[in-house]
């Protein structure tokens, strides 16, 4: 009995211990995770604030001036794997070599509160927002910018920008007459620095397999009717000649309006302008001079009807509603699909991987087909997908400006280094970063100029050097079929997206110059109802459209329009038009 008792005590004790151990380690982790950022946020700035004040007295503002004492700024990041395969494997954003250089040059140290894969970023950031645990420097979309602005959480960047912005950064921000900067200021306070780009980067193109067209003896399609025939042939006539019925026409995934492999360009061909890609409608000027949401216009119906027939005939994947963008990319790289709507950058990814896998594959860019003759793509008035803002609690807002200066500075020739990727420089893991808004056009012009002049290297002496140089070298290597530095697909991707006259930007440029586009007239910040009802309305759209494509009656569209309007759409139309009447630059 005695033995029994002590045994039970031992067992129960060990049980309790193991449970408490498990619990405490869990708690420990949580606390560790939550306390370390807050301590770094509260301790670091206060420690450095003294030094900041001291330095303010002694030195005058320099765009890249070095702080006498380390200034710690916090950031968060959602990241994709590095684009360049030569980057050392297993790297994480906090090991980015750019951060080491930044520390050396300016004595700014970046700490990441958290790092998550890109597709989890939105969610994670919402949670951070909900818990009020914000980093010093934030990359925001317009919706979150609007939210934080309304809650008075953003720091004023006016003075920091005035004093510290480098001439190059100023040049960029003034390149549109200060239009974008003004959009993100309020009551004379600059609340964010917009990373705006050439709006024509959003132009929709039709990417199509030239080698399949040649095999079948068909011409590149210019109208929807021709596209219909080509797409059908891609399904039925075995364009890859492997004697298997394993190809289909047009790539699509479950998000009908997205950043790629979606239907924006398709509908544009019908003169319908449903979306700018994120969860908002595009806005077209109606005959009455008011703005109307493209999403609910009658032109949409014809497009949906064709999609319905495409679905029935197997031109789009029967299970598109289950596929995400990764699956769509898999089909492209696997040579299963011959047509995809998208922007100029496709050759840079994923088409380059396809080319490396199957050297026979030849993708070309076309202006989107329309009802009779080429169609007009939607182009936004302002392309500022993201902005950089600082928390109002940040002690050194100018550090954000210095970091912007730093990234632009790294484009000069003196920082040229062939082994950047291998040394661990990952450009798109560095934030905040702003490009020359005219970057792509500049690359196109400079590279073609150098090619025409038969130059062997780029002689540019400004901050654009590194971008132009890298495309120029890739072009040279692609044309000479030289694969000693990088694979032919990668070289082709850089060349065909940015420099080729019939490539991504080349085709876009033609669209721009021949005025074959329609403007999205709404470029304001999301209105109150868009913010609060947008998610609901988007769900309604996804559900109705997916059903129609999969065979539901076309009358569903009319029902959708009615529900869309009554669930907040009418209010949104009102708000957007109120904005248009008062604030739009016409």
């Amino acid at each position, binding site marked *: 009995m005695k033995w029994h008792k002590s045994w*039970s*005590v031992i067992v*129960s*004790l060990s*049980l*309790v211990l193991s*449970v*408490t151990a498990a*619990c405490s380690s869990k708690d420990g982790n949580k606390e560790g995770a939550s306390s370390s950022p807050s301590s770094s946020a509260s301790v670091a700035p206060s420690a450095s604030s003294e030094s900041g004040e001291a330095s303010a007295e002694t030195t005058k503002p320099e765009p890249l001036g070095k702080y006498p004492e380390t200034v710690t700024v916090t950031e968060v990041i959602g990241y994709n794997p590095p684009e360049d395969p030569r980057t050392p494997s297993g790297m994480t954003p906090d090991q980015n070599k750019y951060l080491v250089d930044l520390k050396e040059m300016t004595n700014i140290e970046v700490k990441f509160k958290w790092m998550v894969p890109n597709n989890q970023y*939105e*969610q994670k950031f*919402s*949670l951070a*927002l*909900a*818990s*009020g645990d*914000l980093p010093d420097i934030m990359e925001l979309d317009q919706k979150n910018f609007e*939210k*934080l602005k309304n*809650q008075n*959480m953003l720091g004023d960047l006016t003075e920091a920008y005035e004093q510290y912005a480098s001439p190059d950064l100023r040049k960029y921000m003034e390149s549109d007459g200060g239009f974008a900067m003004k959009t993100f200021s309020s009551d004379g306070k600059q609340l964010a620095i917009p990373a705006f780009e050439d709006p024509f980067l959003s132009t929709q193109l039709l990417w199509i397999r030239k080698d399949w067209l040649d095999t079948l003896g068909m011409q590149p399609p210019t109208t929807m009717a021709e596209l219909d025939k080509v797409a059908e042939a891609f399904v039925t006539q075995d364009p890859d000649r492997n004697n298997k019925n394993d190809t289909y026409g047009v790539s699509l995934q*479950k998000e009908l309006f997205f950043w790629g492999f979606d239907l924006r360009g398709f509908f544009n061909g019908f003169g319908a302008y449903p979306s700018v890609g994120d969860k908002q409608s595009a806005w077209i000027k109606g005959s009455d001079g008011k703005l109307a949401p493209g999403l609910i216009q009658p032109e949409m119906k014809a497009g949906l009807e064709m999609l319905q027939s495409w679905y029935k005939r197997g031109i789009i994947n*029967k*299970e598109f*509603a*289950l596929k995400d963008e990764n699956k769509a990319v898999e089909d492209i790289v696997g040579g299963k699909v011959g047509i995809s709507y998208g922007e100029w950058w496709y050759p840079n990814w994923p088409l380059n991987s396809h080319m490396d896998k199957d050297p026979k594959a030849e993708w070309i860019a076309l202006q989107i087909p329309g009802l009779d003759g080429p169609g007009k793509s939607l182009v936004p008035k302002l392309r500022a997908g993201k902005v950089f803002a600082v928390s109002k609690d940040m002690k050194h807002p100018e550090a954000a400006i210095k970091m912007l200066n730093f990234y632009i500075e790294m484009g000069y020739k003196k920082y040229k280094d062939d082994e950047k990727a291998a040394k661990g420089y990952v450009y798109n893991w560095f934030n905040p970063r702003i490009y020359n808004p005219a970057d792509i056009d500049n690359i196109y012009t400079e590279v073609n100029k150098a090619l025409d002049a038969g130059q062997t290297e780029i002689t540019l002496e400004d901050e654009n050097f590194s971008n132009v140089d890298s495309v120029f070298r890739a072009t040279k290597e692609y044309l000479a079929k030289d694969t000693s530095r990088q694979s032919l697909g990668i070289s082709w991707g850089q060349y065909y997206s940015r420099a080729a006259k019939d490539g991504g930007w080349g085709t876009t440029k033609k669209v721009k110059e021949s005025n074959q586009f329609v403007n999205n007239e709404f470029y304001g910040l999301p209105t109150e109802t868009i913010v*609060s009802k*947008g*998610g*609901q309305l988007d*769900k309604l759209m*996804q*559900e109705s459209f*997916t*059903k129609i494509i*999969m065979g539901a009656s076309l009358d569903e569209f009319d029902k959708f329009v009615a*529900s869309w309007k009554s*669930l907040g759409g009418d209010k949104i139309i009102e708000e957007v038009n109120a904005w248009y009447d008062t604030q739009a630059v016409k």
Partner: protein
Amino acid sequence: MKKLKRNFPLHFMLWPGVFFTIIYAYGPMAGLVMAFQEFEPLSGFFKSKFIGLDNFKYVFQLPDFNQVLWNTVLIAVCKMILFLLVPLVLALLLNEVTKSWFSRFVQSAVFLPFFLSWTVLGGVVIELFSLNGPVNALVSSLGLEPIMFMLDNSWFRTIIIGSDVWKGMGYNMIIMLAAITGINATLYEAAEVDGAGKWKQMIHITLPGIAPMIIVLAVLGLGGVLNAGFEQILIMYNPTVYEGSDIIDTFVYRLGIFSQQFGPAAAVGLFKSVISLALVSVTYYAAYKYNNYRIF
């Protein structure tokens, strides 16, 4: 006092659970105040504006809400019943198996999927039932048209329920088996002497013997009647089957996390808790009344 001393290890073992509940179940309850506020995350609970029941009004008038509520109840009730029925049948069958290696093998095999996460299993199920998956290969070998299981509302719901029951049935089965083992063996001997066959023994001894355990499981299950399986559905659903599979939890998730409408999301959560509490109380009372069974 003596009793307390003797039971001390048991009380001691209780503490981690109590702490856990206080921290993770009672602590967050303070957050329910959000349901009555126009909650601004950065202003916090104290500075956000109180708006009474507006959040509830807003949520209840949303056109999806009824559908969502119906889906939740339908899926959860089906799951609840099957979670009692299937393990019960399994346990009764296993109890009759005389070869112990076989019985143990089946127990392990049935219990195993319980430990797999939906994150993994969801992908497997989607692939299994995809257009080119093995299930459709079977369907077409029978000469039928392939079925798009994951894109058809009624099929999808069936798969959701079926796969969840398949995954979780081992747990209740083990509990019921344990209860069966606890029945006094002399009862069976006496029944045999009286000439009762296996079937009669099962009806008159085994089932009444484990009835209290079934009631406990039912009460516990009813508490979660509005939990139709958030993780599973979130991983497996898609816009085409929103209509048949969007449940309160996924709805709150989209509302709260993606649309950042924290107030309404908290309101739905609170609504769900109140219903659950009412249901548990009723069942608990009923179980006490008719079966004289109580936990506390």
